[in-house]
């Protein structure tokens, strides 16, 4: 589903990613571990081109999304991203956060179809073989209604339906992060990218967030997760990558890599964190 080819990223003179190659298949759960500053976040952010790679390519569903001529926004809609700092929109209610992107995208697609239809209609005046119009079987009200129902369904799923009209500033960290996760889910992503989703949480809230991620994993969601929670990586991941100094130093199944690390740097890192 995602193919990364010799990915490189430099910030000015400093090369942070030094040639990463990996293929992630549908349904895989890839955990990325490694010391601070090794480039884990940068790598994850290159997967949806939040950082533009300076070399190599990221192929998502057969499209080279690191090519500057593709409309990256279209592809990002199929890749959910969850941040360490939650990043809920402070000026929107909880349900507003979840509905914003689906509604905006639904409406702009509807508008685009309508405009195209106008041009086709005008063109058809001069055509012998009339071109068919785009089917429009939605209305703005319908798009909003569907997005709202979907948002409420997701909120029910995490038991926060009663918070629909609350603002993020009134929620706990765990609640914020779970809402950030379902906000990404509302776009029906094919893959979810998590960057240390529990690192900014108070210890008592880590569990609720990990539970939700675990549920998604069990449902078969493809995911890439940068984490310091080794226990969680071991339990949920199908594959673990150990990164150091901008490279994937070792990759293996969780059981192998935790029980039997081969690279000395992996050994050293694991001996510190386990």
């Amino acid at each position, binding site marked *: 589903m995602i193919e990364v080819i010799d990915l490189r990223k430099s910030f000015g003179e400093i090369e942070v990613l030094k040639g990463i190659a990996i293929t992630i298949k549908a349904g895989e759960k890839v955990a990325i571990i490694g010391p601070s500053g090794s480039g884990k976040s940068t790598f994850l952010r290159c997967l*949806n081109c*939040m950082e533009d790679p300076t070399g190599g390519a990221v192929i998502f569903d057969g499209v080279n999304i690191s090519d500057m001529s593709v409309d990256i*926004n*279209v*592809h*990002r*809609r199929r*890749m*959910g*991203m969850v*941040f360490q*700092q939650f*990043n*809920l*929109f*402070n*000026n*929107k209610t909880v349900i507003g956060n979840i509905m*914003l*992107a689906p509604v*905006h*995208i639904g409406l702009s697609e509807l508008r685009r179809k309508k405009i195209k239809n106008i041009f086709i209609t005008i063109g058809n005046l001069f055509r012998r073989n009339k071109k068919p119009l785009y089917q429009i079987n939605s209305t703005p009200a319908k798009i909003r209604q569907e997005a709202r129902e979907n948002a409420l369904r997701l909120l029910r799923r995490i038991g926060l339906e009663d918070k629909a009209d*609350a*603002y993020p*500033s*009134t929620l706990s960290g765990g609640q914020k992060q779970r809402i*950030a996760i379902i*906000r*990404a889910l509302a*776009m029906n992503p094919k893959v979810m990218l998590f960057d240390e989703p529990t690192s900014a949480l108070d210890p008592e809230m880590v569990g609720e967030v990990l539970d939700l991620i675990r549920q998604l994993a069990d449902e078969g969601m493809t995911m890439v997760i940068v984490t310091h929670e080794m226990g969680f990586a071991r339990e949920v991941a199908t594959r673990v990558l150990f990164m150091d100094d901008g490279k994937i130093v070792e990759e293996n199944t969780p059981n192998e890599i935790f029980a039997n690390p081969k690279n000395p740097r992996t050994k050293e890192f694991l001996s510190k964190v386990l």
Partner: protein
Amino acid sequence: MDGFARKVERFWEIFYQHDGYKKVVTGLQNTVYIAVVGLALGILIGTLIAVIKVLPKYSKLTKALNGFCDFYVGLFRGTPIVVQLLVAYYVVLPLLGLNLPALSVCVIVFGLNSGAYVSEIMRGGIMSVDIGQMEAGRALGLSYRVTMMKIVVPQAVKNILPTLGNEFIALIKETSVVSFVGASDLYTAFNYIGSNSYEFMVPYLVMALIYIVLVMLIALMVKVMERNLRKSDRSN
């Protein structure tokens, strides 16, 4: 004190019996009108400039736009507003062959002028919004422009509302120069009363009082607004 009572009497005569109050009301209306519409224009222009200035500078176009904005801001912040009014009314309009009423010219010049100031305020506001807000929007597949307009700018505006209130007060005060191009405001009204009563002490005193009350009212409104915003931060 006897002299002062006499002066008040003279003032009242012109103010009340010779329709001076009508001029004062018109003047007050113009003052508020120029400041309100000027600020609205200023917020529009200022937001546009601020957004251009925080745009990543990759392309030639954004660089050129950025240069133009710098020039614009420098021009309007670097010259007194009286000069801008005079140049607009007596130089630019005739050169363009246009004939606009003085009041419209004032509104436009005050809008352009405050646009330059608001752009700096707004830029600070936009930069004070956490970068994560933009990233979250982009990660959801929203464009830079949409994220800016739906997420970042509304939060920036909220952060700078008090400062915008001060800009409004500044505009109210600066409108006192519009008579330079023949628009009528509070100054023209009280000057009329003074000239007709041959005494200026009371009219200008009353004028000063009106400005003070006006400014205090706005400051109060800003404070109430600020308090409500902070409340909504906590309890929503």
